[in-house]
């Protein structure tokens, strides 16, 4: 390969894993955070419904 082209690619190719890791990490962590929050939201909603039912039953 042309030595000057090799010089250009010397910083481009090796940096790719670091760039991919940086972007993937942000997106993956955001996705995980959303999934955890939504699943705990669903669980809490189910708990509220159960407790409200229990209170209504006690009141009868």
């Amino acid at each position, binding site marked *: 390969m*042309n030595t*000057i*082209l090799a*010089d*250009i690619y*010397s*910083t*481009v190719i*090796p*940096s*790719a894993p*670091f*760039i991919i*890791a*940086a*972007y993937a*990490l*942000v*997106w993956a*962590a*955001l996705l995980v*955070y*959303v999934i955890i*929050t*939504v699943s*705990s*939201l669903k669980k*809490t*909603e189910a*708990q*509220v419904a159960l*407790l*409200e039912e*229990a*209170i209504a039953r*006690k009141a009868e």
Partner: protein
Amino acid sequence: MADSKKVKLPEAGQWPDRMLVPALALGALLTTTGFLLAFFWVAPVNGAKLSEPVMVGDVTVTHVQLLSQKIFYFHMPVAIVSFVALAFAAYYGLRFLTTRQQRFDTCGRVAMEITLLFVVFTMATGDLWTRFEWGVWWTWDPRLTTYLILMLIVIAYFVLRNAVDDPQRRATYASVLSILAFVDVPICFMITRVIPSSVHPVVAREGGMSPEMAITVTVVMVGMMLVAFGLYRLRFRQARLAERVEALKEQIEER
């Protein structure tokens, strides 16, 4: 104690919650657009000068191209969002200290959680960039050091919350700590203007960004702000429901 009737308390299920899904969707769209702009529209930053110009396709290349600089388009916006989220946490801390309403403590806790998330993003993206460019995972650069202090204070906030049982005392200490953490923000922001650093140059002093770079950073920053807002509302809704579960449990026990 302030009269609770006079204090308007933030609540889940109000108009900001109707913006939750559109905010998250638009945020995802803008960050993806920003990512594509960063790689397919903005020219790579020039590194060292080549011994002689070379044609790549139909473009004359005169410098080594720094592809690792592309991390900047996510790194800077997430750092700014972490500062904004911390500003909200400090605001709610201040509101708690003046009103003694637990609701503001809940808001502050959720805002601090979002802060921690974005602080971790900033640290991780910055570290990957540092590792490639300088061959080290860590360097005691002034901004890195002040930002590390910020991250440690944010982590200490959650450690402190778990260590105190009394809700009123816990909220008071946490509010004070969130305000103290926010004091580090202007220090962190201004430090490179006082102590010049090669790792974190003052962009404005270095001649500013090209219009393409500025547009891309703005698109990602607006996207990240919307994502942070959406996450905050989602988590706040969950936190309010969890508080309702506790209240209902107490109601059952009392009967």
